[in-house]
């Protein structure tokens, strides 16, 4: 289990290989990769700056991964989140989960990214042709995480 906050890019293939290295129990690897879009809320995005709260961010990500491992039948999970200056098409975040079967791995991956988006202290500031602006939180993200709080099937 690992969480990393870094300015540098990540190589998904290399990260997956390391995550499942010599673990013959693994039958499923599920990944989510978040990337920078060139349009948000009807404005063109030229560049984005991602800020975090060093110390707390790592702690919050750790707590989310611990929760996922308790809740779902998975073997391991990795979260990498980039900070600093990013441009459209750049990778922002990687969530990778290993398990014996796909069901728990898919659920855990989605659980982690849903919680990350509402609980982990990261903030996006976009540069648009009209100037810089802080991105507003989305109610759809709150709804996504609320689903896990009422869903007792898993």
């Amino acid at each position, binding site marked *: 289990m690992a969480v990393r906050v870094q300015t540098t890019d990540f190589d998904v293939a290399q990260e997956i290989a390391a995550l499942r290295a010599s673990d013959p129990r693994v039958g499923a690897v599920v990944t989510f990769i*978040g990337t920078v879009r060139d349009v948000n809320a009807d404005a063109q995005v030229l560049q984005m700056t*991602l*800020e*975090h*709260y060093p*110390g*707390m961010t790592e*702690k919050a990500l750790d707590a989310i991964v611990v929760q996922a491992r308790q809740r779902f039948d998975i073997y391991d999970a990795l979260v990498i*989140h980039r900070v600093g200056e990013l441009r459209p098409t750049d990778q*922002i*975040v990687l969530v990778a989960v290993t398990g014996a079967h796909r069901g728990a791995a898919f659920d855990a991956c989605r659980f982690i*990214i849903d919680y*990350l*988006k*509402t*609980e*982990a*202290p*990261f*903030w*996006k*500031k976009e540069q648009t042709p009209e100037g810089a602006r*802080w*991105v*507003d*939180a*989305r109610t759809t993200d709150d709804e996504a995480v609320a689903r896990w709080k009422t869903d007792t099937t898993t």
Partner: protein
Amino acid sequence: MNDTAIRHTLTVNVVYLARLREAFGSAGEPLQLATATATVNDVLTALASRGGAFATELAAGRAVRVAVNHTLVSREARVQQGDEVALLPPVTGG
């Protein structure tokens, strides 16, 4: 025990993040409260009483979350001498 050392003020280190850092023109500061015990609410009230951007951003109903020593807490949580009290706007990572 030396009873003369009883504290009558409380100083916490306030941290302003993202949009709040820009609105306040500061990344943070030591904040002294004139009481021996205080809650998160007392910290927010002291800051809001300065007026200006502090009053606007910390007005009732504004979505500001507070972390004490890197853990999210409620407005009723107690703060201790030397605590790091961070003010967080709604998060937008991922």
